[in-house]
């Protein structure tokens, strides 16, 4: 399916040349990550069927910024809840049970609900935004369907000059299979 050019640039960046290695064990994957980092590589991608702390630790990635999205969304939601209840009551004043027009206690319910709703929605947007941003940075790279089942994978972007070195490093670390793309 053909996409308009700006969308195509965003979602289908040109393929990145490099090496893809498949691993059947967690420890060999972690060893390969450490070797790559020791060799000065930083822009490689690790695939795993599940998140593992060993991989996170070996990669030394900064904490995901998604939590900030959640916080901002939650605070914004609370403010929206306060605003719609107070402003709408002022705009259409209805006396109920002798309570003040703008009574805070019943409005807390709405403010709470809006906090949760906006917090959740902005968390999702945060995940999508950050993942898309990360994917754009790396471009289109090799993938193997076994990485959602029981294999770990590492893709190292490398031009024709560095590809042999990367391949040797991955094999030495215990890769089960290595291919170029």
């Amino acid at each position, binding site marked *: 399916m053909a996409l308009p050019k700006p969308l195509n640039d965003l979602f289908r960046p040109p393929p990145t040349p490099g090496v893809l290695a498949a691993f059947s064990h967690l420890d060999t994957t972690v060893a390969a990550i450490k070797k790559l980092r020791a060799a000065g590589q930083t822009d490689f991608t690790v695939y795993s069927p599940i998140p593992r702390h060993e991989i996170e630790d070996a*990669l030394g990635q900064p904490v995901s910024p998604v939590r900030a999205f959640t916080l901002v969304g939650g605070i914004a939601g609370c403010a929206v809840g306060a605003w719609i209840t107070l402003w709408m009551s002022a705009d259409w004043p209805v006396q109920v049970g002798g309570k003040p027009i703008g009574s805070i206690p019943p409005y807390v319910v709405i403010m709470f*609900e809006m906090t949760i709703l906006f917090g959740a929605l902005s968390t999702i947007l945060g995940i999508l935004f950050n993942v898309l941003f990360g994917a754009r940075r790396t471009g289109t790279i090799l993938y193997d369907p076994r990485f959602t089942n029981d294999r770990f994978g590492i893709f190292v972007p490398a031009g024709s000059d560095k590809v042999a070195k990367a391949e040797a490093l991955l094999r030495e670390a215990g890769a089960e299979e290595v291919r170029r793309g």
Partner: protein
Amino acid sequence: MAETPQPTTPTRVTYDYVTRTIARTLGTPSRGYFLLLGAAVALLAIGIITLLYLLRYGLGLAGYSHPVYWAVFITCFVFWVGIAHSGTLISAILFLFRSGWRTAVYRTAEAMTVFAVMTAGLFPLIHIGRQWYFYWLIPYPNERGLWPNFKSPLIWDEFAIGTYFTVSTLFLIMGLIPDIAAVRDLATGWRKKLYALTSIGWTGSNEQWRNFTGWHATIFAPYFVAGAIYSGCGMVITLLTPIRTLFGLEELITVKHFENLAKLCLLTGSIVGYAYACEYFIAWYSGNPTERAAFWYRAFGPYWWATWTMIICNGFLPLLLWVKKIRTNITALFVISIFVNIGMWFERYVIIVVSLAGEPFTKWTNAVYNPTWADWGIMAGSFGWFFMWFLLFVKNFPAVSISEVKEVLPPPRSKPSKAHA
């Protein structure tokens, strides 16, 4: 190529086993599945026909009579909301307590939450009578400049159910994405296309997991939790038992999982039983004659059968779960779970209908309330609606979390690891 290291995990339950066993549940449905689905759709049809009658002839068809103007519809509403809450509990609280056994059952619980909220949300709409004006609850700008009354609990319901439904659907979908990707990588034909679209490009890269893992550790999960855990645990057992047998998941959803659910049932059932005892004790001990009369009416008035069904099913039946033999017998658990559902439905019936009918301040207006066919028809429809969605879900998406079940397995290593996993 370097020499292939030997696998060191002797167990049959490997990552590959998990993926394939769970993916197999999506295969061609058996006759048993179609029978269950047919029964659900038939129940839903009863509900729809009843609803059409209610639309044509009005709420008078339901058994409302002064002073009982909230009855089966609101009972059903509270029942389904209660079911939903416990789904949230299983997925959120057990996560916060780092209970590894939750991974095998939480997907069922979350799907149950979404479909139970979808079911619950129908009841206030049916109860308002003029369903076509339901959008008056939404604060939208209109030509007369009217806004809803935010002091009304009906508006709170609208916001609460709306938020609860949205957020629990997002929970379910986000958790599903890595699993749909796993299924996508095995599927062929139209299913491959469906899963490719719905997994929105998931590959399990470190960039994706980095942002994703924050999700299921999110802190706002506990906000959602309230009571009604007991009935939900019962419903989870009711739903899991046939799924496990139909789909052959005995090795992933083990007796241990059922036993843990049964223990939760025992704990929460005991709390419920204690609360009943407390209510009666306080009614007597307070010396307040109206309170005493109200509770006497509950236990020995015209609705004694509802009250005793509730007390026996919720207060006494769970005590059987102290016995390990019963706790680990899945057939016995299934039967008990059905009685838990019945008991908890009657608890809401007792609170809503019997409290209104037996209100001592309106003694001169003797209640003659009895549910009619319209009440039962709508209730049957709600069960059909719920089970229909649930059955369609488990056949089209992984009913057990593939990636999270793998998380509690020992990862494949080329040499034995140093203790901690």
